[in-house]
């Protein structure tokens, strides 16, 4: 029940978007090859189910793997930056630069390095998640209230334990914010990867459908992708909340 209750506003949102979209299509009379109506998308969805689920399975694996690796390495980087002062001066600008590089400009080249298999897509999804997570975590780790740091000092904590037992828990709310955002961005990374080189996955399917002007099929694939992105957001939100039973987040991301 509580899961349903959490998902409920999301469902309302999705359906209100669908309604708006249908109205938009009807009112503006925009042709189907530009923007298909939700009904025709649903129809495409129903008639291509098997195809869609097959490709969706692949993309989901890429997304989840990318999200996990991206979050873990982002968090790791943030911890390393907070832990080692020397590292910060060199690693931080590199991090920044890596973020400023438009990924898909590099995507073709990445593909040449990593081949057209799943690895490349996971790397893309990872890269897209990595920076926001590293950046928000690091921002969070830097803003520990002084009083707690003082306490750690007089209690004889070494830098490592201070980081893990004081700074990290104190940064959890900031971290949750970053992870939530990363979760909803993860599908984009995988799809870019599939666009640039692949023979499977929702991105590939979308590209193919687009080239054949099967715009309704493309939107059906998009629908799966978006649903998955949103689901990932709420899952991440729930996980982070579970990690912070002490935290009072009054209004909640989901309510």
């Amino acid at each position, binding site marked *: 029940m509580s899961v349903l209750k959490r998902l409920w506003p999301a469902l309302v949102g999705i359906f209100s978007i669908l309604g708006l979209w249908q109205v938009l299509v009807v009112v503006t009379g925009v042709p189907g090859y530009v923007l298909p109506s939700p009904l025709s998308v649903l129809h495409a969805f129903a008639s291509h189910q098997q195809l869609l689920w097959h490709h969706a399975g692949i993309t989901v694996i890429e997304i989840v793997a990318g999200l996990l690796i991206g979050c873990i390495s982002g968090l790791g980087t943030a911890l390393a930056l907070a832990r080692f002062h020397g590292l910060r001066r060199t690693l931080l600008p590199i991090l920044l630069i890596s973020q400023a590089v438009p990924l898909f400009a590099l995507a073709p080249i990445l593909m040449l390095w990593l081949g057209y298999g799943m690895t490349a897509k996971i790397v893309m999804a990872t890269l897209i998640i990595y920076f926001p997570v590293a950046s928000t975590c690091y921002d969070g780790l830097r803003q520990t209230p002084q*009083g707690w740091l*003082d306490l750690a000092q*007089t*209690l004889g904590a070494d830098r490592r334990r201070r980081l893990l037992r*004081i700074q990290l828990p104190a940064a959890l709310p900031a971290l949750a914010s970053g992870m939530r955002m990363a979760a909803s961005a993860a599908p984009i990374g995988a799809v870019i990867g599939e666009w640039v080189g692949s023979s499977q996955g929702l991105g590939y399917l979308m590209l193919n459908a687009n080239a054949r002007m099967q715009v309704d099929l493309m939107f059906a694939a998009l629908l799966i992708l978006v649903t998955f992105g949103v689901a990932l957001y709420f899952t991440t939100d729930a996980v982070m909340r579970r990690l912070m039973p002490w935290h009072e987040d009054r209004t909640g991301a989901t309510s």
Partner: protein
Amino acid sequence: MTSLGFSLSQARLAFSGQWLFDGLSATFAPGSWTGLLGRSGSGKSSLLRMIADLPIPDTHALTLTTDDQRPLAGRLAWMAQQDQLLPWRKVIDNVLLGPALRGHPSAAQRQHAMTLLDDVGLRDKAEQWPKTLSGGQRQRVALARTLFEDAPVVLMDEPFSAVDAITRLELHELAARLLAGRTVLLVTHDPLEALRLSDRILILGGQPALLSDFEVPHGQRPRALDAPDVQRMQSQLVARLHSAPHANIEGSTP
């Protein structure tokens, strides 16, 4: 544990170019309790921070010598003016913060922490989050955390300010019992508390501030409140605090 005395000299502190104090010195005998009094803003908390070697944003200096010539770091417990409980640790885990920051708390340490929580009257709150505590309960958890450290030198910044009169008296007994033999520096605003608990009273006052001694009653700590010289000396101490030079507050005649 052997008692550890220490002394400080050349203590100076300025904020934005103005000296709060300059050239303070004091000696703290091993196992002695010193009550530190002074007007609000005179620099008591800052002095404690300097002794604990905690960061201070502006110009400051202090020469600190321990009786055994080794640094004080690691042999000192500090209880701040704010309780500084960690919201993500249950009450008992806040008491166990020291061992958790130096390694892993053992079962015996957990046991001991529980005893301390019992001592401060919070055994039934052990498994609660700090946010469910009242102001005085939070302060008592912070006190338990400080007592747990069992350090030879203990700095306490208004440790009993948020608890009621009765609890305060009970905590005096508790602290006196558990911190026997420790060198304690206790900042307090309550003259009676200082008279009850101190072997020696220091008053921080003036512009820039100086440390001056105030005579304490005879007898063993903690002294009974109704002892005649405690009552007498309280008025003297208040008078002395009042006469200490300080920017006057408008309309004051107690």
